Each structure stands twice: as structure tokens, then as C-alpha cells.
């Protein structure tokens, strides 16, 4: 086996085994800090040893055993604080969470602890990327454009709170599960969106490493909670969005709107997988399961990815789905997206009136001004359109989007 093969084996093991190693150690030692450090040391040992000794037949078992040994060494080294440590152990239950059909409860426990509602949203994101996804501190810091030391402190504080406040290492009870799963999905969607529409003048417009990480984690949750409709919905939504990535930014770094995208460049395999998931949820909905927000968003994206072009799109279907979504999520952003479908069905004039009603709540949101600018352009109201583009450009944080809006504005006569 050559060095490249060994490196690949280590990367693969890191992807497949990191969460499992951290999760099983957290359970055994009742301490996230020890589990994280020992897992990192086990992977460092693999990097040293595998090139000479060869990749072990069962890398996961090798890594868990090695990490366990590192953890025990550390605890022995610190045996003075042993009593204190035992007292500070996380509480956990031993019952496998059969009710939710979990195949691997330790990783689920880890995910629910990292996404606990008593932690701030940005802390949940950082902790999930570190503990479950296995990203390094510098990688996470770079992903969210904060200093490495600040990110390190955030994670250290989170681990300290988990210990001090006794946030349990447990899959929530059946009655709390839907709310807690939705908290986990919110974390994953945030990671995905930050990758898909990265903010900040210095960043790439699309951060593939973040969208890929979000999809990988959502696949993991899907494997752990196969019955959950919203998990399937979020995975489908991510896949159908990610499928359009190759066509979404032009060679010169400009955002390409849906109507101008080269649909031949979309990823057919991701679309097929996304459509399969949407069909699965449609069947469940037909059998009486009420679809949640992610499932409806996925269905909307399925309509778009089924169409040959803008005109071929089943806009009445899109609008019907938005009507359903507005009932679940009456946010002004949902109403704004609904208005875009209205423009295709009833024309820009009707849509503009609907958009105008959102002004008090969306005046600071770039997409509100970009949508207005486009509708005004289509109505031939050039001067007003230009002013709306100006405002949208001022507010947009994504470099590709700014480039796109600038071109559209400069094309106005």
C-alpha cells in the first residue's frame, strides 16, 4: 500500500469513524473534552503508524481502542482530580432509544447534546462541526470568519457549560423529540446556507466544504432517524439545491439566476436522489402525514428541478406549495418567495403589490430590494428599478450576488 492509499484510508476513516469514536468515548468516560482529545490523538497515532504498519483490517475498532487507551492514560495522569472528575460526569441513560428506530444511539446522543437548546445557536454550530463532523478548530474558524482563538474559546466554554449545568448525553424522550430534531436540523441548514450563499467580501461565493459537510451530517441523521419526514425533507432540499451548484456561479464569479442557468450542468445524480426522497414524502403525505417546512421546500425545489426551463416550470404547483408553506411559516421571507411565483402566474404588477406590503419588515433585507428591482424592470419602470438595485447591492453580502445585481442594474436603460 503506498502513501497515497494510506492517506486516503485515514481521510475515509476520519469521515466514517470520527463521530463514532467521540460518541463512544463520551459515553464511556462521561466527558466531551476527554473524548475529543483522545479521538484526535488516536487519529494522530494512525497518521504516524499506518504508513509503516499498514491500515488495520477494522480501522474503526483500531481507532476506538487506541482512543480509549489515550483517554485512560490521560485520566491516570490526572488521577488527583479523579474524584472530582467522577462527580462531573455527564448523566446518560442506558436504554437504547428503540422508540425512534435508531441504529446507532451513541452518535445520536452526541448530536442532541451538541445541538442542545440551552446553547447559543452559533455555539451549537461550532460544537457540531467539531464533535460530530470532526472539523479542526482552524477549519471551523475559517468557515465562520472568526479568529481561531475566539472559536476555541467558544467551544471550550460550551464544553464547560455542558459539564457544569449537566446537559445530558441522551436522546430526548418521544414527546420532546420533534422539537429537538427540528433544533438539530436548524443547525445543519444554517451550515448548509452559509456554504451555499457565503457572506463576506473576502470569501468564495460558494463554500463547497460547508455544503458538503452539511449534507454528510444530514445523511448521518437520516440513517439514524429514518422515519423522520423532516430529516428526509431537509436532505432532499440540500441535495436539490446542491445539484444546481455547478450552474450557479459563472466563470467570472457572477451569480447566475435560475432563469439563466445552464440546466444541463445540474448534477443529475443528486437530482434523482432528491426526487426519490420527495416522492417518498409525498407518499407519506398521501397516507396522512402532515409535511413540515423542509418537506415543502424540498417539493418546491423538486418542481424547479423537473422543468426544462423557466416557462416549462409548473408555477401553479409552486404557488400551491408556497400557500401551504405560508400556513406553517408565515414569515415575510416566505411571503417574498411566494410573490416570485405569483409574478410568473399573475404577472409582475400583482407580485409587486404583494412585495410592497412586506416593506416594513424586509426593508433591510437585500433580497426584498432585488426582487422589487426585477419586478420594476419587467414593468419598464427603469428609474425605480435602478434605485431598488442600488439598495440591494448595498445590502448584499455575497460577492457573486453583488456582481450579478450590478450587471442587471447597468443593463437598465
Amino acid at each position, binding site marked *: 500500500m503506498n502513501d497515497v492509499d494510506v492517506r486516503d484510508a485515514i481521510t475515509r476513516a476520519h469521515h466514517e469513524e470520527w463521530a463514532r469514536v467521540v460518541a463512544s468515548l463520551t459515553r464511556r468516560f462521561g466527558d466531551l473534552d476527554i473524548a475529543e482529545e483522545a479521538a484526535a490523538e488516536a487519529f494522530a497515532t494512525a497518521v504516524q503508524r499506518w504508513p509503516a504498519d499498514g491500515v488495520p483490517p477494522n480501522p474503526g475498532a483500531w481507532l476506538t481502542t487506541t482512543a480509549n487507551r489515550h483517554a485512560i492514560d490521560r485520566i491516570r495522569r490526572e488521577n488527583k482530580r479523579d474524584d472530582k472528575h467522577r462527580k462531573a460526569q455527564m448523566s446518560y441513560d442506558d436504554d437504547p432509544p428503540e422508540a425512534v428506530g435508531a441504529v446507532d444511539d451513541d452518535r445520536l446522543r452526541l448530536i442532541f447534546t451538541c445541538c442542545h437548546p440551552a446553547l447559543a445557536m452559533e455555539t451549537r454550530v461550532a460544537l457540531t462541526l467539531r464533535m460530530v463532523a470532526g472539523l479542526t478548530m482552524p477549519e471551523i474558524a475559517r468557515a465562520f470568519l472568526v479568529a481561531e482563538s475566539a472559536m476555541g474559546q467558544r467551544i471550550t466554554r460550551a464544553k464547560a457549560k455542558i459539564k457544569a449545568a449537566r446537559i445530558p448525553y*441522551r436522546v430526548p424522550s418521544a414527546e420532546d423529540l420533534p422539537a429537538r430534531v427540528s433544533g438539530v436540523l436548524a443547525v445543519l441548514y444554517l451550515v448548509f446556507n452559509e456554504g451555499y450563499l457565503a457572506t463576506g467580501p473576502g470569501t468564495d461565493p460558494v463554500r463547497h466544504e460547508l455544503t458538503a459537510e452539511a449534507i454528510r451530517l444530514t445523511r448521518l441523521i437520516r440513517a439514524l432517524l429514518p422515519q423522520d419526514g423532516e430529516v428526509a425533507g431537509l436532505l432532499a432540499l440540500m441535495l436539490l439545491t446542491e445539484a444546481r451548484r455547478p450552474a450557479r456561479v459563472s466563470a467570472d464569479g457572477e451569480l447566475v439566476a435560475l432563469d439563466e442557468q445552464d440546466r444541463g450542468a445540474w448534477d443529475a445524480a443528486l437530482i434523482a436522489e432528491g426526487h426519490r426522497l420527495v416522492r417518498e414524502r409525498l407518499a407519506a403525505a398521501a397516507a396522512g402525514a402532515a409535511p413540515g417546512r423542509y418537506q415543502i421546500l424540498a417539493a418546491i425545489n423538486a418542481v424547479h428541478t423537473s422543468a426544462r426551463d423557466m416557462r416549462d416550470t409548473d408555477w401553479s404547483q409552486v404557488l400551491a406549495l408556497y400557500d401551504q408553506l405560508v400556513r406553517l411559516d408565515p414569515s415575510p421571507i416566505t411571503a417574498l418567495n411566494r410573490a416570485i411565483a405569483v409574478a410568473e402566474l399573475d404577472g409582475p404588477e400583482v407580485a409587486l403589490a404583494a412585495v410592497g406590503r412586506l416593506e416594513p419588515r424586509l426593508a433591510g433585507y437585500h433580497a426584498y430590494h432585488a426582487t422589487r428591482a426585477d419586478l420594476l424592470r419587467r414593468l419598464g419602470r427603469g428609474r425605480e428599478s435602478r434605485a431598488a438595485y442600488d439598495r440591494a447591492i448595498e445590502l448584499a453580502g455575497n460577492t457573486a450576488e453583488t456582481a450579478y445585481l450590478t450587471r442587471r442594474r447597468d443593463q437598465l436603460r
Partner: protein
Amino acid sequence: MRYLVSVIDDKSNPGSTDRQPAISAFNERLIAEGYWVFAGGLADTDAATVIDNRGEEAVFSDGPFVESKEYLAGVWVWEAPDLDVALKLATEASKICDRKIEVRPFL
């Protein structure tokens, strides 16, 4: 695990004043279920006195250590196996007291 559970009121937007019967019933339940360690409502912050004896002589000052719109109106101490249990009880307590609740673990 013990938690200090603080009931937080707001001077400009106080919670309703008819909560005592519901709070008493909730306390009975906390006792019956083994969570109750201690509970007490507090007099107005105007009744507080701060003592600072870190220097040459003790200095007494009238009023609370920090003047703020929000203030501590009462406390519980609960014994609960973990934060999930404490947060669940605190969620009920907030409704029952018609006030915000802070949950903070003892060391």
C-alpha cells in the same frame, strides 16, 4: 445536581400579581416529586442593603448592588438529575409565575 432557579421580574412591565395560588400548587408538586429544596419570594430591591468591607472600614449602601429594569423577584433551589429535567420544570414555572426564569447550576 442542584440548580438555582431565579424568578425575574421587570419594573416597567411587571408580571401579573394573582399568581400565588398557582405557585403554591406548583410548590406542592415539586415537593411531592422530590425536586424541591428551597423556595422564597423576595421583598422589593429598595429593601436591599449592600455591605463592602474589603477596605479600611465597612461601607453600607442603600439599595441593590446593581440598578436595573429587571430584578430578582424570588428564588427556588431544585434538585434535578440533569438540565433537561430542570428546564422542563422551569418552562412550567415561567408560565405559572408569569415571569422569566433563569436556571443556573450550583458548583
